[in-house]
């Protein structure tokens, strides 16, 4: 009996990501959710600009490439034109939390019935390791060589906390993929985010705290330790908003 194999919603194309990059794990979790809900034939994904820019090669469903940061706006259009289809976006922190912040906040406050997978690795990966809106205070990057100084460069944006303050969104959760337990929790969260859309509940965003071994200048296992020691204390994991659960409690 096969206990574990590659999900069908992923193509056979080898991933271009660096060794030990957790994008591959998150791709797989999204594909597993699509497989489990049996919606591959009617799913349309929206690829971002960033390391995951070639995600359209990896998912077996239809994919659209959005302009930088505009994935939630493209997804809004797709969902409104084709309400029967399942629409998800897959975005990094430079895409979603920087240039695409307006699109993200407005899609959330409109409670668009879409699913957003937000990969937060605290750095711009594809362009070579510049400071991102989510880089930690003191974090050394190409554009903050002495560490991010909050007096000059401000504080990191906590996307899950910020969006959960809005009345619109249905479901916001932050997960991580640094160990087996967290990957299993991340899988549950991503599955729920897709299920919410199938059930017509509205906007679901899963923030996945992940790593960037290449631009952090660490080995893949050291990078996952750094996620545990530095990232998770600053970006606490958990459910930030779940309107259906709140309604049940009332």
């Amino acid at each position: 009996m096969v206990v574990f194999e590659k999900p069908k919603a992923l193509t056979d194309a080898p991933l271009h990501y660096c060794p030990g990059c957790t994008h591959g794990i998150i791709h797989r979790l999204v594909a597993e959710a699509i497989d489990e809900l049996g919606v591959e034939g009617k799913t349309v994904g929206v690829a971002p600009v960033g390391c995951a820019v070639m995600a359209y090669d990896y998912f077996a469903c239809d994919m659209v490439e959005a302009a930088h940061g505009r994935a939630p706006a493209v997804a809004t259009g797709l969902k409104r034109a084709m309400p029967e289809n399942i629409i998800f976006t897959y975005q990094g922190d430079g895409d979603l939390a920087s240039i695409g912040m307006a699109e993200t906040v407005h899609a959330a406050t409109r409670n668009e019935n879409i699913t957003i997978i937000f990969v937060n690795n605290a750095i711009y990966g594809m362009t070579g390791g510049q400071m991102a809106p989510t880089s930690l205070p003191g974090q050394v990057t190409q554009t903050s060589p002495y560490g991010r100084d909050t007096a000059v460069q401000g504080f990191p944006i906590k996307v899950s906390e910020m969006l959960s303050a809005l009345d619109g969104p249905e479901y916001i959760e932050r997960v991580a993929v640094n160990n087996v337990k967290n990957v299993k929790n991340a899988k549950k969260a991503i599955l729920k985010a897709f299920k919410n859309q199938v059930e017509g509940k509205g906007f679901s965003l899963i923030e996945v705290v992940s790593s960037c071994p290449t631009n952090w200048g660490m080995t893949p296992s050291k990078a996952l330790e750094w996620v545990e020691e530095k990232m998770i204390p600053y970006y606490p994991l958990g459910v930030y908003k779940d309107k259906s659960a709140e309604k049940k409690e009332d």
Partner: protein
Amino acid sequence: MAKVSFKTDICKGCGLCVDACPKKIIALAKDKLNAKGHSPAIITDQDKCIGCAFCATMCPDCVITVEK
């Protein structure tokens, strides 16, 4: 009996499976390179595998298939 198999040609040798294995029976092949130039992960003692699939859960490249 549990069995793991590795598609060594797409392995990038990141070693996340090595860290995840509770039985410590996965290693990076020191004397082998795949077509991409990485030292791929291999299993050193198949009989000790318990089929937990922790290695496959942490593998970013879907290299590992686990059977039980």
